[in-house]
């Protein structure tokens, strides 16, 4: 049954995040924002971040339009970013990118990042990797605008 193999891509966690995206409310009070679009798919991401005085991300707002992969990736990202410093987030982004590119070292570190590990299956669908990475581009942009960025 073809759909069984699909479950590798659309893991339960992905479907669950897609149905109940975290941090979807727009922040009215934020320190930086980032946007990313993929005109080929019509996908869009709009992101707001709030920091505490140590620079840690305390709140995330994420809205947009996109497929399940895009939306689940964004939702998982919004959870993972909270409580991290920009430096920690950059390391995380780096790991996600490497994971998508099939870097074996990144794969061996699959455990630490909670739900994010479920994005692993996307690697088998090269065309969907862009979908998974779009929210991370918005995050990059938001961080790059911070003065300590």
């Amino acid at each position, binding site marked *: 049954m*073809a*759909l069984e193999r699909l479950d590798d891509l659309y893991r339960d966690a992905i479907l669950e995040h*897609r149905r109940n995206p975290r941090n979807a409310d727009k922040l009215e009070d934020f320190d930086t924002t980032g946007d990313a679009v993929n005109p080929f798919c019509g996908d869009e991401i709009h992101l707001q971040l709030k920091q505490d005085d140590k620079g840690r991300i305390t709140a995330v707002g994420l809205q*947009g*339009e996109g*497929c*399940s992969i895009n939306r689940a990736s*964004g939702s998982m990202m919004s959870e993972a970013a909270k409580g991290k410093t920009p430096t920690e987030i950059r390391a995380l982004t780096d790991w996600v990118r490497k994971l998508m590119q099939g870097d074996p070292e990144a794969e061996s570190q699959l455990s630490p990042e909670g739900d994010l590990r479920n994005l692993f299956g996307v690697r088998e*669908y090269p065309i969907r990797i862009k979908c998974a990475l779009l929210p991370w581009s918005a995050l990059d942009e938001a961080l790059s605008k911070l003065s300590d960025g």
Partner: protein
Amino acid sequence: MLDVSKIREDFPILSKKVYDGQPLIWLDSAATSQKPRSVIQSIVDYYEGFNANVHRGVHALSIESTAAFEDARQKVADFIGAESSECIIWTRNTTESINLVAHTWAQENIHAGDEILVTALEHHSNLVPWQKVARDKKATLRIIPLAKDQSLDLSEIDTLINPRTKLVAMVQKSNSIGTTNPVKELAAKARAVGAAVLVDGAQSVPHMPVDVADIDCDFLAFSGHKMLGPTGIGVLYVKHDILERMEPFLRGGDMVLEVSYEDASWNSLPWRFEAGTPNMAGAIGMGAAIDYLNGLGMENVRDHDIQLTKHALDSFKELEEELEIYGPKDPALRSGVVSFHHPDVHPHDLGTVLDRRGIAIRTGHHCTMPLVRSLGVPATARASFYLYNTNEEVDALLDGIKEALRYFGNGAGTAG
């Protein structure tokens, strides 16, 4: 009527299995068509039997390849009712054909204050080149808008086509939603104000009888790869008396008559427009594709498209409440393509689910971004049919959509 099961045997790829044993269901012919064995074999025969640079070769192979190459040109001319094979220019694809007109004829004939008219259905290839010409020449690009059912809204056509109009460039059959435009009627209106007419036949020439004399157009552009032919070969037809007065486009070997270090004069038609070694195997394969299509009859090819489209529209009624299907409802006015959107399943997710079932469709904007935006959706899912598709494949598509709805469909929507 086409004998589709017999036809399918001619296409080696159609017996291919994807993933672990799913038979391939190719519903992406609007992007590119599959190739019958005769076309593939014509390319092998060329390379194994008489590969040689065309024109002016004094040896046996060059004589043979030149004859086959020019014979293919004649087949193209006959296929579209051109007045002479001198009017047929080989290009890489539809896109290059249209750009050739934009770089030659348009440079001489579009001036400040002139208008270029396209339709809201255009593929980027028949839109972006004219944006540049309009900008460079300080001309205005105007758009024939759409009616509610995505057919052309012709209510203002007599204002849109006016004495300032110098070129009407229009798609005959939309690759994105399948609408077939009344190009003959629009060409007559264009003629009446002295405007030239370019027809983008990328989807029409493969799918229905097209006759340039009947349409009375000045330019017709189309691609081999969408009509059973090889990749890398396209055609630009130009009416003879216009072509005679056109400056060359690309310059170099083969398109010249006489060259000194300072200057050059041009070869006769159509070679003047073909610089460098042409895609010989591509042209010969294109000839074989036309032979195949002629063997079936283009009326039959069109009728088969219409029948499949009708079957799809009928079957899709089951999902009527949720599924938005674009384009006119009458399969005689739109065929070969069914473009749709479901609010609960993003087209990419649908595409992936179908793909795992062996069903190849396209998702996205289909190189008609402004059109898809005007539909109010980020992307559509598009199934497109050709002479080798069956009702059973359409049924499999519907089954796949229903499966995807079960998988994703909880009213979660695609909007964030």
